[in-house]
């Protein structure tokens, strides 16, 4: 009874405003982002360019289109009564920042040329690369992914098998460990001159180098994962009649998987750098080659476009790996969200 009167007194003191009926607050950030994109469209389309840019109009239209979409989302939520997906809502501040950044970039390049040309390309020049040179760019992505996938899969599989073998068998460990210690830390790119000379094609040489770069971290971390398995896990399985095969496949490997995925992640990072170097040095296709080629022609816009595509490709592949891990290691607590 005393608590009830207390609550009442507090309630009258603080006097909270009544909770509004609608569940979500108006998306002000969205409206602001719409305004920012509209301003960007006005700057791009309204101010004169310092040079003949082919895609200024298209860029202005894209910015205006984005502004329109954001306007529909933020205002429409009130009028038509639908809910904005939470993910879109969260990206609001980023959309706003991107519009501001695009406007600034546009001003210092295409409009007033404050940054020296041609080293700094304008947004519309980049857009032009995507609209006009997409076949070559797409082809480069495809070749890069194919080369990378081949080398990575071979390296990851070999590294995994070797890591399990070293972790499990003392004899294999005895012979493999010193070799691994000597060869492993050497950057795979150091093999480049020999590899291009020893392999019949630059493609197979690059596949080998990527596999080598991937294989080392996967081997070491698989090995460490297998070696670190709680010995009691083996005791449990052995008292229940498990064979050696069962101990490897059903105990050692699953227990080592978190560590294996760290190795796969590190191997993927290493494989990216080898891929780009290999494509710059000898392979006549792929994004690394495209970068080199664009630089040779002083086509800086193409270079930036290729860099952007490369970044998207790498982050996309890492995301893919993390998705796979989340799926396989759902039993783990506290996984890092990529």
């Amino acid at each position, binding site marked *: 009874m005393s608590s009830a009167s207390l609550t009442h007194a507090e309630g009258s003191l603080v006097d909270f405003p009544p909770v509004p009926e609608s569940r979500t607050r108006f998306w002000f950030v969205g409206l602001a982002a719409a305004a920012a994109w509209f301003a960007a469209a006005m700057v791009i389309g309204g101010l004169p360019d310092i040079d003949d840019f082919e895609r200024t109009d298209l860029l202005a239209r894209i910015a205006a289109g984005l502004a329109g979409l954001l306007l529909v989302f933020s205002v429409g939520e009130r009028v038509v009564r639908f809910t904005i997906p939470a993910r879109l809502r969260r990206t609001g501040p980023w959309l706003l920042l991107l519009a501001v950044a695009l406007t600034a970039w546009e001003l210092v390049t295409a409009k007033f040329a404050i940054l020296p040309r041609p080293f700094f390309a304008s947004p519309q020049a980049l857009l032009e690369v995507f609209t006009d040179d997409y076949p070559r760019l797409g082809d480069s992505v495809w070749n890069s992914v194919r080369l990378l996938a081949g080398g990575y899969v071979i390296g990851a599989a070999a590294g995994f098998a070797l890591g399990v073998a070293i972790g499990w068998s003392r004899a294999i460990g005895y012979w493999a460990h010193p070799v691994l210690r000597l060869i492993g830390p050497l950057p795979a790119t150091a093999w480049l001159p020999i590899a291009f000379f020893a392999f019949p094609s630059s493609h197979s040489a690059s596949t080998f180098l990527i596999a080598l770069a991937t294989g080392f971290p996967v081997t070491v971390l698989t090995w460490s994962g297998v070696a670190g398995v709680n010995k009691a896990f083996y005791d*449990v399985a052995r008292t229940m*009649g498990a064979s050696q095969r*069962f101990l490897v496949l059903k105990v050692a490997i699953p*227990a080592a998987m978190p560590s294996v995925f760290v190795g796969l992640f590190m191997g993927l990072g290493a494989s990216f750098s080898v891929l780009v170097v290999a494509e710059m040095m000898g392979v006549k296709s792929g994004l690394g080659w495209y970068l080199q080629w664009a630089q040779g022609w002083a086509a800086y816009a193409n270079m930036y476009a290729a860099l952007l595509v490369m970044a998207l490709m790498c982050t996309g592949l890492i995301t893919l790996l993390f998705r796979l891990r989340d799926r396989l290691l759902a039993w783990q607590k506290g996984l890092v969200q990529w």
Partner: protein
Amino acid sequence: MVSNIVAQQTAVGASVDVNDVSHRFDLDGKTLPVLNRVSLRIEPGELVSLLGPSGCGKSTLLRMVAGLETPTVGTIQADGARITGPDPSRVVMFQDPTLYPWRTVKANVSLGLEARGLLRRQGHRVDEALRLVGLSQFATAYPHQLSGGMAQRVSLARALVNDPKLLLLDEPLGKLDSMTRITMQQELVSLWQRTGFTALLVTHDVEEALFMSNRVIVLSDRPAAIKADIPIDLPFPRHRGDPRLADLRRRILGLLGLDADW
């Protein structure tokens, strides 16, 4: 449901003979004797406790009976056959639940059947074992979602699914809170009474040994030798306040040199 799993149990548990076993560990070139001429017979269906000071070698003796280690001197037999390695008829329940974190509760309990390729034909026994320990509802949970007592129950179900003739309990309740421990002591006793397996319990809890076993074997400090073999001829279920248990407790604490405060 219980009767089903009980019906499949072999009628009697295994007998165990420990014949003049001594054992030593090699640690950094030095030899550390842990067992000193231990001889002991466990009759089928008995529940025998090994009680001794911490680190005296009682867990080592249990691991030898399980076949996980080989004695330096002497032999151990189960049902008259010499123990040379692990066998699914002798299952260990460890102090830690040692559940595989990547397997669900049900998949953990299935382990023994899966390891021996019996899962397809006898998979229904997994559900029965889970029901026996009262965790059917947690079949799809992962070990990290369980409390300590629940995890140890899963560990018990994982042992029972193998139809053990001999259940080796290596301080299985040592890390549980006192209330869960009391509950699980009762559960283990009633399970043992219903199924008839032989059980060897390693513990450093005098009260637990007295409450649960037919015989208490008191071991000396390392290297462990048998100090006393004390039969407890009291019917189950026992009462913790029983004055006869209090007498025995005083006697055992005396053997362990801990009777000063009695």
